[in-house]
């Protein structure tokens, strides 16, 4: 074996026998070789990683598209369709008595005559209802109201639940114990029965000064918010308290504290980012359940009051004359199912993307 200028191995040593290697093996790495060692993937943030996972989930993407389509429709449709949701149809200022329960895309006799004379009439995409109102625009407004209620109810629940839960979680000790007993009792109340009861009473009792914002929304809607706010926050409060308690115990919080981080910094940098995904996901899942409850209450007749439509009250109204005009049930029914389905799937997708631990 030829000597390559490297020291010879002691026969008893367990070290590598360097004399077996050539001199080139020890040459410095070239630039190309160095580049191979670079990390191939770009650095990613928690949010970006979650979004990437979300967009890889076909169901979540489909529901996002569906929701976007529904949102666009309910924003744009009232600008395009010349009817309003409580407007009884009229032709040239005269009441059109024949426009009752028209099938989709048909015109009444009066309207037909008007069109024959050269007038233009916007088609009734979903037909008309029993009081000669355009049904499409009613469904659009009903969707607006149902979504609005779902969205605001979950925000109210979020705010109350977050405040209560975080106070209880931070304080700990006796205050926490008492606050959680209150939650236990409210939690064990049968929510639906209490909602019905509160709704019955509040509908009668609530009165607002005429012309104010609250009175324009209508007592029934305000009482719905109060009812949701009173009963549904307990679940959120429990969730947030549990999160805070478990995050507080984590090693990284201890580490932060031991290097002298102030409580404000710990809350901002460690506790909030770590509960955020749980909070967002459970609020997202709260929207469909609030929409569901609202449509149930409107169906029973104690939800949103006429002439304001809601998907539940439209479905209830459609039960009259169901045999002759089944489309009046089908349209709101499809919209409710689509909204609840896509919000559920989106919430599940968010959960899988941002917090796989939460999966049941």
């Amino acid at each position, binding site marked *: 074996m030829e000597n390559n200028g490297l020291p010879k191995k002691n026969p008893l040593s367990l070290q590598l026998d360097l004399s077996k290697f050539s001199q080139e093996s020890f040459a410095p790495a070239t630039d190309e070789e160095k580049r191979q060692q670079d990390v191939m993937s770009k650095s990613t943030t928690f949010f970006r990683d979650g979004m990437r996972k979300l967009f890889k989930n076909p169901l979540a993407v489909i529901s996002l598209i569906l929701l976007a389509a529904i949102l666009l429709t309910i924003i744009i449709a009232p600008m395009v369709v010349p009817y309003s949701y409580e407007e009884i149809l009229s032709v040239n200022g005269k009441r059109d008595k024949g426009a009752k329960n028209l099938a989709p895309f048909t015109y009444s006799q009066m309207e037909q005559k008007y069109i024959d004379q050269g007038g233009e009439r916007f088609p009734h995409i979903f037909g008309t209802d029993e009081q000669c109102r355009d049904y499409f625009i009613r469904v659009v407004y009903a969707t607006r109201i149902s979504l609005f209620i779902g969205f605001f109810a979950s925000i109210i629940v979020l705010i109350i639940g977050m405040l209560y839960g975080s106070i209880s979680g931070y304080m700990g000790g006796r205050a926490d114990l008492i606050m959680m007993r209150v939650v236990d009792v409210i939690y064990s109340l049968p929510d639906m029965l209490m909602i019905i009861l509160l709704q019955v009473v509040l509908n009668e009792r609530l009165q607002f000064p005429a012309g104010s914002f609250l009175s324009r929304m209508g007592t029934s809607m305000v009482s719905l918010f109060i009812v949701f706010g009173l009963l549904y926050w307990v679940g959120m409060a429990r969730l947030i308290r549990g999160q805070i308690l478990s995050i507080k115990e984590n090693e990284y919080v201890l580490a932060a504290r031991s290097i002298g981080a102030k409580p404000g910094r710990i809350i901002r940098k460690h506790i909030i980012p770590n509960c955020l995904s749980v909070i967002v996901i459970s609020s997202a899942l709260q929207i469909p359940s609030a929409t569901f409850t609202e449509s149930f209450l409107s169906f029973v007749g104690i939800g949103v009051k006429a002439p304001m439509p809601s998907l539940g009250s439209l479905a209830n109204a459609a039960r009259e004359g169901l*045999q002759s005009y089944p489309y009046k049930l089908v349209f709101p029914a499809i919209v409710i199912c689509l909204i609840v389905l896509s919000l559920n799937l989106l919430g599940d997708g968010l959960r899988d993307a941002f917090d796989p631990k939460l999966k049941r």
Partner: protein
Amino acid sequence: MGKYIIKRVLLAVLTVFVICAITFFLMHAVPGGPFNREKALSEATVAALNARYNLDKPLGEQFLLYLRNLLHGDFGVSLKNGREIKAIIGESFPISARLGISAMLVALVLGTVLGSTAALMRNRLPDRLIVFFSTLFTAVPSFILATMLLLIFCIELQWVPVWSATSHNYLLPVIALSAYPMAYITRLSKTSMLDALSQDYIRTARAKGVSKFKMIFKHALRNSLIPVITYAGPQIAYIITGSMVIETIFTVGGLGSKFVSAITNRDYTLIMATTIFLAALMVAANLICDLLYKLVDPRIKYD
């Protein structure tokens, strides 16, 4: 265990008391006395009626009297037709109970069967179909499903007779009522079955050469049932409220439809009594389920 049972029972009693208080004071916050009718009654009649129903006493005392009456099983009388509420509940509750229990049984049995099938045939066609339909059915409100069923099978196809005094057909109401819990239980039992199948004891059983049948039924299924049992308790609340609209739609004369018509008629005593009755039922069902759960799964800690 004993301490835990006592704690849970006390909490349940407290809950029922809170419910009674809320219901009583809320119903008394409604404007207008119970004897406000279109035809004005004479003052003497109103005074006599108020005395008869203790309405002349202070509110706190009225509440105590109401509680005492409740404990004696006296729910008072309906404001609209003057009938004893006890009699109304007595005749309509069995119908609701029958409907609810059948729906719950259907949901439990079919739900676990479908869920386990989906878990065992993971990622094959049956699994995908079951997951698709169970996701779909959790998004359909029961009142819409019920109305659709009524329209299709009773009116259009006339396969099933409409509910009347002479024909009591529970088929469609049970389907409508059980659809949502069934879909939910299917999803739940699929996850828990998958979870159970990946456990070490299943691998041990298979390594020992246990037949597939025995492995599924003796080891996996039993353990996967625990989350389903926990879910079944709170579901009673869903069944009861869901039954309100479904009974109304199918014109079944159960307690649920009586409750809905009491709401529309503003029959406050009937609303109050039915709420308390149903709420006590739900609390009791939850209590029993919680205790059973602890019995079934000894791993749960009593805290």
